[in-house]
């Protein structure tokens, strides 16, 4: 009796169950999800209600996947996380609605050059408007955490690793590591303002596809309103509440990306 129990537990903890994740696995899934969403939206709301009912019932109503959807074209859509490819119009529509409205339009002519036009000085002959330095209205959320979220709510997400450590000399604000960022100051929470800092995981990218490992120039290209502050690049966001991306760098390459609440009362955040 116990033998078989033990054998099953041993088998299911076997390293050989691990499978290698392909580099484009995430993109492939995100594209597939977008395809399904578009198809559903096109079909109309009634379909959505049925499928949502499936969600409400738990998981018993997952429908047989349409083979077409899985076999659909995976390659023609440009990867949304490939650093070298500029956002094509197709990608922009589903990775970032904000991108479409606040970015300088990336013309198809620019796409073939492999790099977004870094500035507006040589666009005299083009009809492109100069990049508006308008902050984006992207909400200050990362995973289950959001800037301004009270500590109790943040702890309830299960994303924070306890115990906390004091984040300022007075011990008012608290610092936490998160499940994706071992840095003990990954998240800083003010007793008054809630979460004032969130650090992105080292592999994470912003919706404009920059993150740790990106060049400072790439950040400035992605965000027209970026400003340099020491070795950091600061990109204000116009969301409510207001916040900024802080791209910490070694001077040339981004080392860490943090999100910081603008209305912030913790000295170290």
């Amino acid at each position, binding site marked *: 009796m116990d033998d078989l129990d033990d054998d099953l537990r041993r088998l299911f903890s076997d390293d050989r169950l691990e499978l290698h994740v392909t580099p484009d696995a995430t993109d492939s899934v995100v594209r597939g999800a977008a395809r399904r969403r578009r198809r559903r939206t096109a079909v109309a709301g009634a379909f959505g209600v049925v499928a949502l009912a499936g969600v409400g019932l738990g998981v018993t109503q997952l429908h047989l996947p349409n083979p077409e959807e899985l076999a659909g074209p995976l390659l023609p859509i440009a990867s949304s996380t490939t650093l070298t490819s500029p956002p094509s119009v197709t990608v922009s529509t589903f990775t970032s*609605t904000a991108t479409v409205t606040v970015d300088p339009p990336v013309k198809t002519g620019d796409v073939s050059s492999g790099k977004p036009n870094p500035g507006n000085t040589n666009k005299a002959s083009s009809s492109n408007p100069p990049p508006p330095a308008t902050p984006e209205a992207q909400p200050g959320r990362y995973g289950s955490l959001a800037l301004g979220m009270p500590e109790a709510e943040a702890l309830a997400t299960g994303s924070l690793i306890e115990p906390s450590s004091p984040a300022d000399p007075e011990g008012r604000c608290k610092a936490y590591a998160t499940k994706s960022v071992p840095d003990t100051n990954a998240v800083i929470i003010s007793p008054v303002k809630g979460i004032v800092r969130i650090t992105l995981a080292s592999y994470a990218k912003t919706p404009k596809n920059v993150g740790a490992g990106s060049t400072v120039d790439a950040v400035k290209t992605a965000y027209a309103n970026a400003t340099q502050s020491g070795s950091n690049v600061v990109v204000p966001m116009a969301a409510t509440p207001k916040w900024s991306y802080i791209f910490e760098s070694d001077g040339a390459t981004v080392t860490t990306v943090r999100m910081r609440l603008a209305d912030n009362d913790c000295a170290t955040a």
Partner: protein
Amino acid sequence: MTAVLRLELAAESGGGRAETVGDFAEFVRMSMPGLLRYGHALTGNPHDASDLVQSVLEKVGSRWVSVQRKGDDPLAYVRRAMANTHISIWRRRRRESLVAEFPETGAVPPELSRLDNEPLWQALRELPPRQRAVIVLRYYENLSEAEIANALGISCGTVKSQSSKAMASLRTRLGKD
């Protein structure tokens, strides 16, 4: 229900779309290795594990806003969906590997072939999908009978009977009876 739908549509049509997609992509990146491993245990082979994970994640991702709004742990939700999908609708065999790399021909990685040579792994493959799922939920996920019943939408009695049938089959196949 319709209110939820409207909210979702509103969120999808607004600036929250980008954040939602980024958030889902992050979830996929973080959970993919564990889900593939779990799918491997559920299905018994890398191809089906890959297909199962991709299919369920795409469905969940296409409704990410409402899945998150439900407040459940999305990972637990996906894992339950995988178990159910495997049982109820996973009948197709596809050759293409979508999210897991796996050599199509020729040299099978030695570590994989060794797993294939495990008598218990082979015996598990012979189980009907629901019995196998019950075993995986119990011994891989360490769920109780009540939790398994809840996850699969079946009664505790069914969990018990499926479990004892599965264990009996495994013992027979392994010559342990």
